[in-house]
């Protein structure tokens, strides 16, 4: 009743001994996620989280000892590229990178490498994934979503939580929620996630949370119109943002006429998507 992560996910945490790494690992563990290993170079041999999780110097060693099948990285931006390459090299099939502030050129390089290595990346600069009741990988607060049939995919971080919270208050359960990140170059796109939700028998409808910048929403709309059978509801942030002003996300720059919220909304609506005017209006649009 989920995509990408579930109760069988065996998680490896890169940068587990850092401030954010240890805080969120504790939260993931509390949620029930099976954290089988942590990696911090130079800290191999330690045990963290009340002795529950062994720390290794390299991902290779961690993989050999624990057979993880997913990694999440809290490594600082300057080391995050290496962390992703290391995980891909160690044959991890699913990488989640929470880290923000990675240069675009680095991500172009990483993305190219991961594609060749056959590894799927979620992020960077994303909140990660949550399959309610089963597994939490990343930093999405666990208590704001219940299990259910709604798939959620979002470019934003906290706006995603807002939507999850609204769904919860309306008694709507979630199959899996994925924050794909708002950077210009990311691993997994709207399109990729929509394909997964369309194929997942337990997801009945999908919420897509976009924002200004880029053309990912337009490409998602094309897929929805052409190939999706499940209903999609959307919200696009930045409808009132002045053009040309940078709004924090590298991806949220309005670039030369394309990337406007109005274009995205028009594309989605013409593909049959109901677009909400506020995040809290989303649940009532779900059939």
């Amino acid at each position, binding site marked *: 009743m989920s995509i990408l992560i579930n109760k069988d996910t065996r998680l490896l945490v890169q940068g587990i001994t850092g401030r954010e790494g240890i805080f969120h690992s504790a939260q993931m563990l509390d949620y029930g996620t099976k954290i089988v290993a942590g990696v911090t170079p130079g800290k191999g041999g330690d045990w963290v989280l009340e002795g529950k999780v062994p720390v290794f110097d390299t991902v290779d060693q961690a993989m050999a000892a624990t057979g993880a099948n997913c990694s999440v990285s809290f490594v600082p931006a300057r080391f995050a590229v290496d962390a992703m390459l290391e995980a891909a090299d160690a044959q991890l099939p699913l990488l989640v990178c929470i880290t923000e502030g990675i240069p675009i050129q680095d991500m172009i390089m990483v993305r190219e490498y991961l594609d060749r290595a056959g590894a799927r990346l979620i992020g960077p600069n994303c909140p990660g994934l949550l399959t309610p009741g089963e597994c939490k990988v990343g930093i999405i*607060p666990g208590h704001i979503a219940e299990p259910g049939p709604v798939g959620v995919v979002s470019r934003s971080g906290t706006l995603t939580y807002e939507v999850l919270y609204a769904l919860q208050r309306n008694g709507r359960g979630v199959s899996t929620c994925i924050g794909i990140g708002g950077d210009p170059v990311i691993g997994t796109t709207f399109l990729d996630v929509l394909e997964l939700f369309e194929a997942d028998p337990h997801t009945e409808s999908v919420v897509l949370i976009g924002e200004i910048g880029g053309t990912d929403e337009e490409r998602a709309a094309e897929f929805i119109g052409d190939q999706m059978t499940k209903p999609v509801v959307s919200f696009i942030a930045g409808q009132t943002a002045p053009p040309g002003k940078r709004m924090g996300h590298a991806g949220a720059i309005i670039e030369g006429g394309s990337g406007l919220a109005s274009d995205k909304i028009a594309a989605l609506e013409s593909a049959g998507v109901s677009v909400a005017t506020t995040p809290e209006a989303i649940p009532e649009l779900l059939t």
Partner: protein
Amino acid sequence: MKLHEYQSKQLFAQHGIPIPRGRVAMTASEARTIAEELGGRAVIKAQVLVGGRGKAGGIRLAGSPEEAEELATQVLGMRIKELPVRKVLVDEAAEVQTEIYLGVTNDRAARVPVMIASVQGGIEIEEVARKDPERIVRVWVDPFLGLREYQARNLATSMELPRQLWSEFARIASGLFKTFLDADATLAEINPLVITRTGQLLALDGKIVLDDNALYRHPGLADLRDVDEEAASEREARKYGLSYVKLNGDIGCMVNGAGLAMATMDVIKSLGGEPANFLDVGGGAAAEKVAAALQIILADENVRSILLNIFGGITRCDEVARGILMALQGVRREVPMVIRLVGTNEEEGRKILADADLPTAASLNEAARLAIAASQVEAVR
């Protein structure tokens, strides 16, 4: 981070791209001296980090050093889109035959850099793109291989440049791509790249935007930041790692996350209010960041109420709550504040606020409605 025209052209020159002779002047008399060095005729160009300088009268042609001084006096006295002109570039005037556009940026969809060229340079490239798309040619560049000579040749033949200019054009295109790559730019463009009456290629104007996330590995470029060009509030925000954009409304916003911040502004507007700013305190916002953010919002005289919308993920609600209390110590309290706090450690966060008699709103719509109402009450006072 945007670079000035003169900074961009210096980077071009370092990569072998021909630029006009010229220097920056801070005063009109300096401009006169430079014009004299250039032989009398000179172009006086306002150096501000906004578009539309030409239309605003910020680019002027002087026929003599005297006229250069006079025009520089005028330009240095201008404001362009509210920004005061503090510097002018005094360049040798070129005899222009053809104006070409040549730029590099990242194609987000293809996930590689793309080089774009057009013989319809000089005016807004977006204009050409809309009206005359076939006049724009592009090549996608493998970031590992760099711009290859055949790609530059493909651009040159598609633009129907004269054959004798191909190798020089290829050299310039290659230099521009290297500038883009070496500086970790998100945009590097020459507009116009002119063919002069004597058949030379010359980069008359240019623009570079750098990737802020990569500035740490380019300390020399980071030093080029012109702090005079930023509003004091935005400079202050940057110091604390906050993302702040001043707008014209009266409801101050502090939100964590750019998407939620934009959504919060959308909700305020949809309910009839006007946001005073965009402010993203970012992920992992510590107490002191929140405090700094409040100070910046309160420094805006137009602000009549404040909406704090914090949904905790990396940011923990208890830290946010402590930040709010810390920020409120020793600042004016006249502005009413609506706080919404949900997510990680929300119980602790709410308790801290409740202990300090600060109530919290449950939903975003409710919080926005309350903030709008409060601003209207303030406005009536």
